C-alpha cells in the first residue's frame, strides 16, 4: 500500500482504490445503500408535488433508467457524430496538443510498480 516517491516510501492515502477487494467492497456498500434507500422509500412518506412522484420507488427507477438510457443514447449518438480528430483540419483546437511552453509538466520520478500492490 505504498508507492515510492523521490526515493522515499510514501503512503498513498488512496492506493486502496486499486485493490480488487476494495472495489468489490465499495460496490457491495453501494448495493447495500441502494437497497436501504429502496426500503426507506416504503417506510418514509415523501412529501410530493408532482403526480406520480409519490409512487413507490419513483426516484430509484428514474435514477437507474435515466442513467442507463442516457448512456445508451449517448452511445447511439456517438455512432452518428463521431469524427476523426482532424476533421476540422490539422490546425483545429481539437487536434492540437496544449503548448507545453505554458505548462509546468512535472512527473514524479519512476515509480516502483511492484510495490503498489
Amino acid at each position, binding site marked *: 500500500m505504498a508507492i515510492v516517491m523521490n526515493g522515499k516510501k510514501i503512503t498513498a492515502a488512496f492506493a486502496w482504490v486499486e485493490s480488487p477487494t476494495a472495489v468489490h467492497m465499495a460496490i457491495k456498500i453501494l448495493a447495500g445503500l441502494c437497497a436501504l434507500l429502496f426500503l426507506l422509500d416504503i417506510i418514509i*412518506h415523501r412529501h410530493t408535488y*408532482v403526480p406520480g412522484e409519490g409512487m413507490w420507488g419513483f426516484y430509484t427507477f428514474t435514477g437507474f433508467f435515466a442513467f442507463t438510457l*442516457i448512456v445508451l443514447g*449517448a452511445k447511439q449518438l456517438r455512432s452518428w457524430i463521431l469524427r476523426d480528430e482532424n476533421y476540422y483540419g490539422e490546425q483545429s483546437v481539437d487536434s492540437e496538443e496544449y503548448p507545453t511552453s505554458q505548462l509546468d509538466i*512535472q512527473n514524479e520520478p519512476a515509480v516502483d510498480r511492484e510495490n503498489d500492490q
Partner: protein
Amino acid sequence: MTWLIPPLIFFYGAFLCLFVGRTQRTFITLLAPVIALVSLLMLPMGNMAQVQFLGFELIFIRLDKLAFVFSLIFIIAAFLAAIYAWHVNDKIQQVSTLLYAGAALGGVLAGDLISLFLYWEITAVASVFLIWARRTPAAYATGMRYLLIQVGSGVLLLAGLLVHYNDTGSILFEHMGLVSTGTLLIFLAFGIKCAFPLMHNWLQDAYPAATVTGTVVLSSFTTKMAVYALARGYAGEEILIYIGAVMTLFPIFFAEIENDLRKVLAYSLNNQLGFMVVGVGIGTELALNGTAAHAFCHILYKSLLFMSVGAVLYRTGTSKASELGGLYKTMPITMVCCLVGAASISAFPLFSGFISKSLILDASAKNGYYLVWFALVVASAGVLSHSGIKIPYFTFFAHDSGKRPAEAPMHMRIAMIITASLCVIIGVFPSLLYQLLPYDVAYKPYTTSHVLAQMQLLCFALLAFVFLMIKGIHPPEVRGINLDSDWVYRKILPTTLSAWAASAMSVANTWRIGLQTQASEWIIGIRRLSSPGGLLAKGWGVNSMVFVVTLLLLLVLFLNLF
C-alpha cells in the same frame, strides 16, 4: 464615490497592470477583487453613478438584491481565479482577466441598456484574450469564432435596444418581456450569451481552447451575466422554461461521449445553465431565488471542476480522458477537490448543488410544469453521469495511464481547497446563501423526503453506472471529434461559401471578359476612325469638303424653301 464603484476598481487594476512588473501584477489581480468587495459592500441599495451622456440618462450602478448576489459571486470568483492563476506571468492574460471580471460586474450592476451594452461588448473583447493567450493558430481561430459570436450578440443587443428605445423612449434596463421586435432582439442577444440550444456551441468550442487559468475565469462570468440579464428582463417568460428544459437535456448526451474533459465541463456548464433558465422562465420568487442561488453555487463548483482539470492539464499536458487515468496516486489533493466539485454539481446532499437545484425543481413542480420537472430530474441523473462520475473517474481512477504527474502547485491547491470548502460550507449551511437571495423565501432543503429522493436518484444512477461498467456497455473513451452545431459554421458554411464564391467568380469573369472584348472592339473601332489618318481625323481632300458643304447647303435650302 462614482469613481470608486466596483467595476472601475477592476479597470483601474487592469490599467495599472499594464505598467508594472510581474509581482505587482499578481498582487493587483488579488487585491482588485478585495477592494471591489469592500466597495460593493459600501454601496447603498438603489441607483448610483447616473450620468447624462449623449442625451441618454445612463445608470451605471443599480444595486438591488438580485444584482448584489451576482456581484458578490463575481467578485469571489475573480478572487479565486486570481489565486489559481498565481503562477501566470502573462500581462495580457492578467489585464484581460481584470477587464473581463470588471465588465461582467459592470453588466450586472448596469441600470440601463446602453451601459449594459457597453459592458456586454467589453466582456466579449476582454475575454477572448484568455483564449488567444494559448498562442497557437488553432486557439487564434477558435478565439476569432468566439469573438464573432460574442460581438454578434452585442450588436443584436445594440439593435434591440435601439428598436426598444425607438418604441418606448426608454433605455431603462428593467423587466421587459417578449413584447416587440426590440425586446425579441435583446432576448436573442441574451440568448446567445446564455448558450441557448443551437446558439450554444461557441461555449464548447471556446472554453476548452482557453488557457489553463483562462477557462476557469471564462466559466464564471459570461454566461452568468446572461442569466442575470434574462432574470432581470425576461423573468416569467414561459418560453424560457422550455428552452431551459432542452438546455438541461441535450448537452448531457454530448458530454457523455466527449473525450476532452474541459469540453465535457463546457457541456455540463450548458446543462447547468438550463436549470437557471428554467428558473428564470418560471419567474416566481422561489424560482428566481433558485436561479440566483444556482448561479452562485454553480460558479463555485464549476470553477472548482475546471481548476482541478486545469491542474491535471497543467501537470500532464493533456485533458483528454483517453490519455488520463490513475492520477489519484500522485495528485490526491486535486482528486479530493475534484470529487467535492463533482458531488456539488451532482447535488449530493451536504454539497452546494443540492441546496440550489432543489429550489428550481420545487418551483417547477409547484407551478405545474410537470414535464419540465421530470426533464430536470432526468437531467440531474445525467449530471451525475458526466460531471459527477466521468470527470473524476476517468481522470483519477479508471485504468492506469502510467502518468505520474506531480501534485498541483501550491497556489492551485490553495485555490481549489478554498473553493471546495465554500461548496461544502454552503451545502451544509444553506442559510448563509439563502439570506443573500433576492426574495425572502423560507425554504428548507434538508427535509427527509428531499434528501431521500435525491439520494435514491443518485445512488441508483451510480448503481446503473457500476452495472454498465461491469457489463462493458458503458462507452469507452476514444479520441475524436463529436459534431455539434459548430459544424454549420466550421464545415458547411466555409465549404459552401467557397464553392459559391468560386462559381460567382467564374460567372463574373465570363461576364467581364465578354464585356471587355465588346468594349475593346468598340474602342478599336473608334480609335480607327479617330486616329490621325482615320476618317474623322484625316485632312479631308478639297473634293470631299466641298461635297459636304454642298450637301449641307442643299439641306438648309431644302428645309427653308419647302
